[in-house]
């Protein structure tokens, strides 16, 4: 024991003396970088495995999915699940479900962008009586769980005869009811220099002009991250459409996906997973196209060097 302990005790001192990040040898650097990448790759593999499992399972026969089947790939590779998935459910084509999801998601994006940016401008740039109270109330709605308002909201839309239309799902987006996005934009705008509007005002611009010509172009990162989030949230929303839509013709994808799995009869996991893969594509594309703006938008940095 003692004989082996002695050399290790002297090691730290020797290492410390030589340790200087700037003069690290190329070999050590490469080793460190290799280890870092290996660890990162291993973590990525863990995180991405469910996605890989989903894609692999989409090509398996139903009986081989889950249960005691542990192999990732099946020997019975086939596209049957996709064929079943594209057949639709109960006379409604899968394309219809996609279209419905798209209408809802695009509606949500357009509505949120229009309403949240205008409201944010008012909160950030216009001094009106009770501004801070209203701002506080808006933030308070963030703290109110959605589940608390489900029933009162349902009763309102039911009385107005708007159940089984897209109105209950979209109207809130056009009225800036998503406080999170308003807040995001307010924070973003507060970081934009006030001198810009002051200069515009001296040139004779009113609020409309300042908003459209000065603020909107500068807010691009915030607008884009808002679009991405509201698109993805709307695309993935299950409870809202479940409660407000009755006719299967109007169902978006998340509702349709659930129809493949039925506890009381046989469940077609294969078709459900195949459809999940298809449903994932638009979100993935949307994300890939706009992802470089996300960080920019969220970090609420108005102007950069």
């Amino acid at each position, binding site marked *: 024991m003692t004989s082996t302990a002695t050399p290790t005790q002297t090691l730290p001192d020797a290492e410390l003396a030589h340790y200087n990040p700037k003069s690290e040898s190329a070999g050590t650097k490469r080793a460190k970088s290799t280890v870092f990448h290996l660890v990162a790759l291993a973590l990525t593999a863990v995180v991405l495995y469910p996605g890989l499992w989903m894609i692999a399972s989409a090509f398996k026969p139903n009986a081989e999915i889950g*249960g*005691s089947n542990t192999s990732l790939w099946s020997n019975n590779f086939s596209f049957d699940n996709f064929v079943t998935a594209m057949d639709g*459910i109960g006379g409604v084509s899968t394309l219809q479900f996609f279209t419905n999801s798209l209408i809802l998601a695009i509606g949500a994006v357009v509505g949120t962008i229009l309403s949240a940016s205008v409201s944010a401008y008012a909160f950030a740039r216009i001094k009106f009586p009770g501004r801070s109270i209203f701002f506080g109330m808006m933030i308070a709605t963030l703290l109110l769980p959605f589940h608390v308002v489900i029933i009162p909201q349902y009763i309102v839309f039911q009385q107005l005869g708007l159940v089984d239309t897209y109105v209950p799902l979209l109207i809130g987006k056009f009225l800036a009811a998503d406080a999170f996005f308003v807040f995001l934009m307010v924070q973003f705008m507060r970081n934009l220099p006030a001198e810009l509007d002051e200069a515009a005002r001296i040139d004779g611009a009113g609020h409309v002009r300042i908003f459209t010509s000065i603020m909107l172009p500068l807010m691009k990162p915030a607008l884009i991250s808002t679009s991405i989030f509201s698109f993805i949230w709307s695309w993935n929303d299950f409870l809202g459409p479940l409660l407000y839509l009755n006719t299967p013709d109007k169902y978006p994808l998340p509702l349709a996906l659930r129809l493949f799995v039925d506890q009381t009869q046989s469940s077609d996991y294969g078709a459900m997973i195949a459809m999940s893969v298809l449903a994932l594509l638009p979100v993935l594309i949307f994300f890939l196209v706009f992802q470089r703006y996300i960080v920019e938008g969220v970090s609420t940095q108005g102007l950069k060097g």
Partner: protein
Amino acid sequence: MINRRHFLTTVAVGTASAAALAACGTGSGTSAGETGSAENPVTINYTWWGNDDRAERTRKAIALFEEKNPDIKVNGNFTDFAGYWQKRATEAAGGGLPDVMQWDLSYLRDYGQRNQLLDLGTVNINTDAFEKSLLPSGQIRGKTYGIPTSTNAFAVYYDPAKLASLGIAEPDGSWTYKEFNEFLAEVGAKSNGEIFGSTDYTGVWWMFNIWLRQNNIEAFTEDGKLGFTKDDLKKWWNQTAALRGTPAIVSEERVTQLAPKSPFGSNVTATEVTWDNFMAGYLADSGAKELKLAPVPSDDPDNLGLFLKPSMLMVASAKTKFKDAAARFIDFMVNDPEVGQIFKTSRGVPASKTQRDGTTFEGTDKLVVDYEKSIEQYLKDAPEPPIVGFGTLEASFKRVASDLNYGKLTIDGAADAWFKEAEDLIKQNA
């Protein structure tokens, strides 16, 4: 993400207040409601849960109904089972339940007691072709809230091919608990632990309920309290005490790994106790050529404790404007032989004799129908609709039994834990 527990609590609060409001309303009228004509038909909404297959079949049945009843149009909608009840809870609170609904027994008392469902005794639905022992399961305090579309019964599933490969004889249809346990142990031993006998059947609420009936104990008293004692429950969980941890019973770890598929559907066990209408699902999941059904074990060969349970019911909303049309649609869906031909046993075995006799059953369907015929002589009255909150009780029974299997609880501890939960729940809903 949506937190289901929070959601349900919210909805429960909401529905409870809605019920209080509804109770203040006027009593139900006796009029038939608005009626239509062929030129100017009324439209009723019908909603069900289920998959693509059921949607297709229901579409056909609705088309047939509209053809025979030109004065009524049926607007059909469907969702999955879990979403179905979230939606109904919200609609009930908002006063907007669809006119006619497919219903599950465990929700009948809840909605019935809160006056959300139409008393079908006040409208014209023919129930002459129904087993008299079955109808009470759709009734609460003398009012008929649901008409069963179809029935299911409890059974032991087994895979004859697996038994044959192990050189084990198929069950002959009558066994005691001791014989059943020996059978499970034999499967585990002969397969060298590759195939387990079964899941722990003492963790299945309905199997316990059947065992209670075999011992002439009712699970729930008429006033909604527990009808059995802690000692009964301990005795029940002791049934398989010697089998837990042996290849006779699949371990809880394995069951969890296999979820959402069942061990039986994953070809990990040779038998399973559950409802006989799971046949199609098991066949699809396991890929087995053939599965067979045997009656449940009983220590009293004359009392198997078995009963027919409505696998599904038809109900109408208390607020429907079209009582007469709703009643005619329900009557058609439960009695018409052509509807039987469309659904076969996908809803369960048709409950009405008219419908059952008008349907030809083949293959899997025939197996299930034949099984229910074979146990006819043992059938007793179906239990009343389960108490409010029964779903939670059933789930906690399963959970506590699984902790028992994990070895986290002793049998005494498990019985104490479950009784405490059950008594709290019953007190809350009283």
